[in-house]
């Protein structure tokens, strides 16, 4: 039972999407601007893409960011899965409300506060224990895990809530023990949620400027930190090129996932 949206609604929808995509389109167009004076169109040129790949600072920062993102996403997925299982399966236990609160809090506390808190903590820790001696990969990763555990847990928890509990009962009934039920039934069924959780955590980490700025030390700059330092006071043609590449990459990934999803649905309904 669906009725077609009215013309007014469709107009708003159109403007809404234009609003969302206009700046991105402009960014992509200007990434091909030959002129170093960014606002002035100086003809088409891919020169900034070439410059981008020669820029050691950006490449190093990108590598560091990817490493941090991969590590923190994996760690957050592991912890998030554990937390979601505890909340979804353990039933009522002491302090459950407190745990739920703790898990949800990083979702809503502003970045600047999380960043500041972790920095002060790391400083105090290094004075007391001598660790971390230097801030960089480890401290940023820890901060990013803290940030994204909640996101993963929420996604996985939602999936657990939708799981048909009779599937696990059937596995037990057919002779599987606790661990085998988890490995052969629960885990495969949670796999899509774990993948989206991991991807989200990866993106959050790759995207974070504020927390990384607080928790990094001298000499360790993530990609957003480098980008920010370049565009804080002005515009940077290389950043335009970088942004365009990133958008292209995300577009391809999303379109691929849509196509795969559509094919899977098509196969299902085709029977």
């Amino acid at each position, binding site marked *: 039972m669906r009725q077609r949206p009215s013309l007014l609604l469709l107009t708003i929808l159109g403007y809404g999407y234009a609003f969302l995509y206009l700046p991105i389109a402009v960014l992509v167009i200007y990434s091909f601007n030959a002129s170093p004076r960014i606002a002035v169109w100086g003809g088409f040129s891919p020169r900034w893409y070439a410059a981008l790949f020669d820029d050691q600072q950006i490449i190093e920062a990108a590598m560091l960011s990817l490493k941090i993102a991969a590590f923190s996403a994996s760690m957050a997925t592991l912890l998030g899965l554990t937390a979601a299982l505890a909340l979804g399966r353990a039933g009522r236990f002491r302090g459950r409300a407190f745990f739920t609160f703790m898990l949800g809090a990083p979702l809503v506390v502003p970045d600047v506060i999380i960043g500041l808190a972790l920095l002060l903590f790391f400083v105090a820790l290094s004075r007391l224990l001598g660790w971390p001696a230097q801030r960089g990969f480890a401290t940023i990763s820890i901060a990013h895990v803290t940030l994204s555990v909640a996101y993963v847990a929420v996604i996985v928890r939602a999936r657990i809530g939708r799981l048909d509990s009779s599937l696990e*009962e059937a596995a037990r*009934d*057919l002779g*599987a023990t606790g661990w*085998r039920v988890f490995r*052969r039934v629960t885990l*495969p*069924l949670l796999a899509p949620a774990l993948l989206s959780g991991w991807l989200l955590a990866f993106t959050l980490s790759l995207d974070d400027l504020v927390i990384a700025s607080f928790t990094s030390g001298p000499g360790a700059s993530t990609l957003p930190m480098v980008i920010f330092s370049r565009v804080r006071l002005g515009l940077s043609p290389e950043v335009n090129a970088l942004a365009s590449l990133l958008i292209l990459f995300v577009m391809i990934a999303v379109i691929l996932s849509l196509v795969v999803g559509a094919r899977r649905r098509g196969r*299902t309904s085709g*029977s």
Partner: protein
Amino acid sequence: MEQEPAMKNGLDGPNAPTTEPTGDPFLDRPWENPQAEPFVRIERLGKSFDGVPVVRDVSLDIHRGEIFSLLGGSGSGKTTLLRMLAGLEQPDHGRILIAGQDMTRVPPHRRPVNMMFQSYALFPHMSVAENIAFGLIEERLPRPEIRERVAEALDLVSLSDFARRRPDQLSGGQRQRVALARCLVKRPKLLLLDEPMAALDKTLRERTQYELARIQERVGITFVMVTHDQQEAMAMSSRIAVMDEGRLLQVGTPQEIYEFPASSAIARFVGTVNLFDGRILEVDGGCTLVDVPALGSRVRLDHGIDLPQQNMIRIAIRPEKMQIERAEATDETKDKVNRVVGVIEEITYLGIASTYHVRLSTGALLRVHQPIRTREAQLELKWDDTVRVSWHPSAPVALVD
């Protein structure tokens, strides 16, 4: 479903009904044999959830090769009882013995029992063949044997061509058969079925009931089935246990339950029934005469009763066990035994039969069921016609509530 050969070398191995020498008078009805060892023995089983009793002190014997139904409405405790047999719920007290062994504290994965879930619980990430192989892999069987047994099971349920499909690519009936095969391939001693037809549409049910019964006959595995559908229970079961509020109300064959319900609750739950209170006038050998004020007449039963005269009693008469015919308003014979006169208030045409609601002069309403034998028969009686309703002394049943 032609796969005789599969059966010969496969699934009917250790669980086939022990072919007794002919001449056993209890072959079809082992529950009537006082010497027979029950296959499943449930002893005073009880279970509460959050202090609310769900199963109360249930004792039950189930024999080898039966299709035994637990019949009841929602909240009657039938599903909980089934889940305790599977080991998915722990009873608070009581024992469960299967083939003489105490299974009460045995975890589900070690019980020789498998369950077909109401939702079928097919693993969505596995193909049909992988679903069926699941339990065999857990048994750590060698691969060739698994392959062979899966193929047999697929054959048994006529799904050999669907082995590589995923559950979401199957129809409801096919999914049910996969669920069945996944259980049977384990060669359980006991198969539990939780509302096996609930997920199927109506047209498919009847055929599936027949197929399920045929497969059961072949593999000889004892079935215990939960259902809320009395017709399904009657059609398939060797015996039925009627449950309500966690208690067993009556255990018996479908015929016993229908013809001799133990209480008015059962009589009402299984089929429709006319119920009237009466007073015993005389008990004479094989016959009982009861005065029923609501009918304005007397009812003769062709069986005696263990109650003294003047005792109150409840009479049940099934609507299909009465005759209805046109009568004159003046046709009020004095000797009104097993016969009343009334006016048709409502006619429900059902195709194979009509139900007449007859209002008596006492104000009572009688439901009478008449098969329609000819196309015109249904037209003979109309609204507001005066009719005579009568029945044979074998029709009414006395209930002691």
